[in-house]
């Protein structure tokens, strides 16, 4: 009797440990190994558009993490009830719900950020990172793993946006500031900033050079 109980508890323990380890695996995977921007090269539209300043990039990342987490949870929950035929409309409806919630709360609590993100906030609905994760991951995996995936991919997106906007704001304005607080001011650049970094073409250049750099240093492995 005791033995049986012991073995049962042991089994459940290994099961939880196993699920915990796969949780961490899915979580860490999203940050570097399958970084949504640098490796999957998804969601470039908002990446190019809002990475002109750190504030915008962090606000956008927070929004994407929220929507990704919410949609992944719901889609994983209803994955068995969703008819395969209409799965894309279902994903869109769920994602749109979370984007609407996000837009309403940004408008209510963070109006400056809401204004500076502009059209890119409602456009999260068609962000291919979120739709991609719903299609590839959340619709085939249990809730816990989907949460790990959402957090990992979301953090990966944040990391990528942070790197890009860091470079663009630093060279494009010569200063660095987060939420109105100035962190850094370069002596020469702040007077003669390289404005191209703030412009859309600067975003393409920065992303292109970063991708090249990552390939060259072997962070990203070519096929």
């Amino acid at each position, binding site marked *: 009797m005791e033995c049986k109980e012991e073995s049962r508890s042991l089994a459940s323990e290994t099961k939880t440990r196993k699920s915990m380890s796969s949780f961490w695996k899915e979580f860490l995977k999203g940050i570097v190994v399958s970084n949504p921007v640098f490796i999957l090269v998804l969601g470039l539209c908002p990446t190019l558009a809002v990475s002109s300043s750190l504030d915008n990039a962090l606000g956008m990342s927070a929004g994407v993490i929220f929507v990704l987490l919410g949609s992944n949870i719901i889609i994983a929950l209803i994955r068995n009830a*969703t*008819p395969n*035929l*209409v799965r894309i409309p279902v994903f869109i409806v769920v994602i749109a*719900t979370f984007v609407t*919630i996000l837009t309403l709360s940004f408008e*209510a609590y963070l109006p400056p950020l809401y204004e500076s993100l502009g059209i890119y906030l409602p456009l999260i609905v068609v962000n291919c990172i979120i739709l991609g994760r719903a299609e590839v991951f959340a619709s085939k995996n249990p809730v816990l793993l989907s949460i790990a995936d959402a957090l990992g991919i979301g953090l990966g997106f944040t990391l990528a946006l942070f790197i890009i906007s860091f470079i663009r704001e630093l060279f494009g304005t010569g200063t660095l500031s987060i939420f109105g607080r100035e962190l850094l001011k370069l002596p020469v650049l702040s007077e003669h900033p390289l404005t191209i970094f703030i412009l859309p073409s600067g975003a393409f250049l920065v992303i292109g050079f970063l991708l090249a750099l990552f390939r060259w240093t072997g962070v990203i492995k070519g096929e």
Partner: protein
Amino acid sequence: MLVVIVILTAIGVVCGIIIYVVNRVLPPEDEALKKTEEISNCLPGMNCGACGYPGCFAYAQALAKNPELISESTCATVLQNQEMLEGLGSALGIKLNPSIGKKALVYCTGDTRVLGDYSGAKSCKAASRYVGGTKKCPYGCLGFGDCVEVCPEGAIHMDKERNIAVIDPEKCNGCGLCVKECPKNIIKLVPANTKIAFLCSYDSLKDIPGREKCDRGCIHCRKCYKACEYEAIVWNKEKAIPEFDIEKCTLCGACVKACPQNTLTEFSNILRKVPV
């Protein structure tokens, strides 16, 4: 197929309910937005852009932040309409009267001498680009009438005799389009209740028109300043021009009489442009 439709509809309805609940939980529209909407309702809503803002709502937003702004960039259409003016005044919480408006005034008497024959394009812009103007005074009205064409109210006409643009203060709605059009920058907006008009627009002491360039330019004699008994004229030493205090001016006409050059005119006499 039916199952699919039912499931999709159910998901949609549930999502709709979630959004409704969230919307109720969030704080209601803040006061600033309500005020902006109230102000916006008092504006004409035709988004002409003459106030300098991208549209009536943007103008309302700016007004909601700073009601004082109305005296700097005024909506010309509201000023013409008593009902709208009162509505806007109560929305902003300040008393408005039509005199907060602006009128365009050509700061030139038109009597500056001509450099020589000019046979180029009949346009102020072209002439000022080409030879810097056709008049001896660098601040003189060129008289080709670029401003006449842009005026939406038809308030500007050319005085052919004197070759100068004249703006009718009655018709002018203060939109400022002519101000932007003039390549010589001699049209300026003045308060609508201006009493005395100073018809010369040189910028610095260095190039005062003087008698050899213009028959009616200011010669900075300070006679007007001395003639004023009500301290309504302040002498601007840097530019050497008189500046007028509308509140103190009694329109006695002493300065107009004192001016040896007839540079000063009563604002209401602008149309006549009488040289004595």
